[in-house]
């Protein structure tokens, strides 16, 4: 941490205690955010081991669920143990020289001044805002009492620090809104710093960002821009964008993917993480390194592969490092991430491909068009019968087109998947199925295309795709359901994106600097305690 002096304690009357402020959002830290925050605050060699509670996907994003999930007893038990384990490491002999900035007057007695310095410093970083004097005093007292009980100053520090790390103030990102004139509300500065930091770098705000909050810089357009530009220019942007794309591309689906070992023995343990990494590298390379047109994510033939992926794609691996850049030849049938092993295998059955699953997923991920679930009484036996007269999956699926109850959804979701039938369930290329050549043509609402490159071009040219990506980024940043967000909500920022040639950095900058980004609705007076109410507009 840079040695920037930051006021560590709020005086009385801070917005955190003000009566006209309200909590606009309460977002539980995700596993990756927790780990990144601890690593940045205490250093990478502090081990974080434990069980994190599962997250849920809402509106296509896991980030949305952080705004509605809480902490179960088992989850808290784990957070409590992790907090203690982290605190033990931070105060142990190996680390205290570096991480504890002061020395106690005596090693076996309380020293409130040193405890205050230590707990105030880390309290600021962990709570992402200064502690109030009451908050700090309570922790110093706790540490002092623990020191007396145990006879060791550092043990007292440990328990004090552990309390901070399992406090709801660390585990939940509290977003405080203050009046902004008329009926409008906006986030106060520390909340702004937090929202920016987790969006751009997927971690807790650093000292400079906290200082910008403290001085009120973040409330000014120029000050905000300065910080946004700094965050965008840093290599750490990659961490933040990896987190966003992992969420948007639903790469955590791999946790539940298994393939039939007898039919596809090539799919082993190394495949899932490799496929995930390939897609992330491709996306980050286009978005950040090449600063390219994000629509090209649908058409680029450039990728990065390791030895495992090389085996599925059936190409030479150079062994020059674990990952090598690779460009598919023009006749490979590959086009963008939609024909990478990740997308093809995550949304597919263990033993055979699934145009419907692929279609449904890609429509939802890239066009923000989810498909309703099938009726309860559907009979799947016909589609899976390979011994009947309908030899290909396509033929069996097309049977749905003639049944009215099925057609409405299947004509919506299947076409994308049908154009991808040139790839089996583990993402390998195939030309025939059961001895018959595969027909890769597809029609969506009158537009016809075929095969991977055809699909890629269709998505590339479809204005819904960049709009969907923008909506998802907005929902991700603010913790709202992307299905409830229209691109018109942040019109100017979106225009910035399209005008720039669909560059990711332009979208991020436009969003972060838009007035809509930090605006929040007025406090909800709804007395219903059953469910979190859906907020009408953001």
């Amino acid at each position: 941490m840079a040695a920037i002096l930051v006021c560590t304690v709020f005086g009385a009357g801070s917005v955190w205690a003000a009566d006209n402020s309200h909590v606009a959002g309460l977002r539980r830290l995700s596993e990756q955010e927790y780990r990144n925050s601890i690593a940045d605050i205490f250093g990478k060699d502090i081990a974080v081991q434990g069980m994190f509670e599962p997250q849920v996907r809402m509106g296509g994003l896991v980030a949305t669920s952080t705004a509605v999930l809480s902490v179960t007893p088992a989850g808290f038990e784990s957070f409590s143990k992790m907090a203690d384990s982290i605190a033990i490491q931070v105060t142990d002999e190996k680390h205290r020289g570096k991480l504890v900035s002061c020395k106690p007057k005596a090693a076996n007695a309380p020293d409130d001044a040193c405890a205050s310095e230590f707990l105030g410093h880390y309290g600021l970083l962990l709570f992402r805002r200064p502690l109030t004097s009451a908050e700090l005093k309570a922790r110093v007292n706790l540490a002092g009492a623990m020191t007396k009980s145990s006879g060791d100053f550092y043990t007292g520090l440990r328990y004090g620090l552990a309390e901070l790390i399992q406090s709801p103030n660390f585990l939940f990102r509290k977003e405080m809104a203050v009046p902004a004139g008329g009926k409008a509300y906006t986030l106060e500065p520390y909340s702004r710093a937090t929202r920016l930091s987790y969006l751009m770098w997927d971690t807790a705000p650093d000292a400079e960002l906290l200082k910008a909050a403290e001085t009120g810089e973040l409330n000014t357009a120029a000050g905000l821009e300065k910080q946004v530009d700094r965050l965008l220019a840093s290599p750490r942007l990659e961490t933040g964008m990896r987190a966003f794309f992992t969420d948007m591309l639903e790469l955590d689906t791999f946790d539940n993917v298994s393939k039939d070992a007898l039919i596809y023995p090539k799919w082993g343990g190394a495949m899932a993480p490799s496929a995930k990494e390939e897609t992330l590298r491709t996306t980050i390379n286009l978005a950040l390194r090449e600063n390219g047109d994000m629509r090209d994510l649908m058409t680029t033939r450039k990728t990065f592969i390791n030895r495992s992926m090389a085996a599925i794609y059936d190409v030479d691996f150079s062994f020059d490092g674990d990952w090598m850049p690779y460009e598919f030849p023009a006749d490979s049938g590959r086009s963008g991430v939609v024909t990478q092993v990740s997308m093809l295998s995550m949304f597919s059955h263990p033993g055979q491909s699934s145009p419907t699953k692929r279609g449904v997923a890609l429509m939802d991920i890239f066009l923000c068009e989810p498909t309703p679930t099938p009726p309860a009484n559907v009979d799947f036996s016909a589609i899976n019968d390979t011994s009947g007269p309908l030899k290909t999956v396509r033929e069996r699926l097309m049977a749905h087109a003639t049944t009215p109850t099925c057609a409405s959804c299947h004509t919506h979701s299947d076409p994308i998947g049908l154009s991808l039938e040139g790839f089996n369930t583990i993402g390998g290329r195939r030309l025939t199925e059961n001895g018959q050549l595969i027909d890769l043509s597809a029609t969506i609402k009158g537009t016809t295309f075929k095969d991977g490159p055809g699909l890629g071009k269709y998505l590339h040219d479809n204005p819904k795709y960049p709009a969907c990506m923008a909506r998802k980024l907005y929902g991700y940043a603010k913790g709202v359901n992307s299905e409830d967000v229209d691109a018109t909500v942040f019109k100017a920022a979106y225009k910035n994106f399209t005008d720039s040639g669909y560059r990711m950095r332009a979208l991020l900058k436009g969003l972060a600097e838009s007035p809509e980004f930090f605006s929040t609705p007025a406090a909800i007076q709804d007395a219903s305690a059953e469910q979190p109410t859906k907020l009408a507009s953001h």
Partner: protein
Amino acid sequence: MRLHRRTLLRGMFQGSAAVMGVPFLDCFLDSKGQALAATGQHLPTRFSTFFFGLGLTTSLWVPKKAGLDYETTSQLKPLEPFKNKMNVFSGMRVMVDDNPNFQHWSGNAAIATGIAPTKASQFDSKTIDQTIADVISRGTRFKSVAAAASGDPKHCYSSLGGANTLPADPSPMALYTRLFGPGFQDPSKADWKPDPQVMLQQSVLSAVSDERKDFMKNLGAGDKTRMDQYFTSVREAELQLAAELKRPEIVAKVDIPAAPGEMPVNYALPNVRTVTPLMAKLGALALATDQTRVFNLAISEPGSNIFVPGDPLGYHITTHMEAIDQNLGYQPRVAKYNVYSMELLASVLKELDGIPEGDGTLLDHSLLFAYSDQSYAKIHAVDGIPIMLAGNANGRMKTGYHIAGGGAPVSRVGLTVQKAMGLSVDGWGKGSMETKSAYTELLA
């Protein structure tokens, strides 16, 4: 009567090690919905390991059916009386990655640590029983106990990592002396002290709970509900800690036997057959009287040298020397030796299941982890090493299953074991055996 949090905390900051005189009421269930013993006291879950060398014969032990109600194969027959309290795992794989496949070592080391060893006869991390002991053995007399029915104290596969293994008691007499000789404290008498760390942890939780009022200020209704849940979780943790401050009550009905005396302890099968159940009984008594919560028993080393008197070759050499019977498709004498291992495991389970405790037996409140070093000893193969679990872990482990691993890494079993034992862990193992995927169908 709702127990007020403050009741638990009186006297906290004076650092006194007072026994909390708070009665436990029937209305208490712990946060996992686990029933407490009739007296209201938590029954700790105990952990045991059982190691047997040289595996089994795949075509004779792996059931064709997977899941519940699998058929009892000929080599699993000795375990039939305990079938509904066991899970068996076939087709689990050891991936050694860039490391050699050390004969009679890589397999069992990988099962015990989730990591393919880089050196022979060494573990690349603490073994699973020690990881579990770190969490569950707080306050017991022995962190863990180990015994070797072969009579060699080096036959112990419990380690803190590296080349050193914990010493095993090499005879029933040595085990008895350790457990019930000098130093034995009858837990129903004497002065038992709670773990002082628990008191300190309680202060931390109390401070977290104190944040409630400030934190809940200005929250909307929906967020209030969520934070209610959070603070309820904190309360639950406080109550759990309070329970640990109470002296454990021994609910097992046991008599401590007389000393077993000296007897020959070696590789001759009749001796192994006498010594194994005796060591198991002593270990079970130790678990029941809370001398320890982790007991490790090995009936041989990885290349087991057990022999039937009159057989000049013995088990290990036979696995290499005996030809495969073309008609049967396996080595007949080896298959007989395999079954002896299963009979010995059954004799151990009999001892654990034979101690009544509360509404069940010690076995019901335990988890036993049995495994071997090779799947096909003749050629030192490690794909499909037999692995079994026994006991319901105080209701946390469902039993009666045959899990057909289909090439899944062996570390998945170790991860499942740790979760059933209540460890807060989301992943285990390294390299290709790194996994976050426990067998959730077995976890209650």
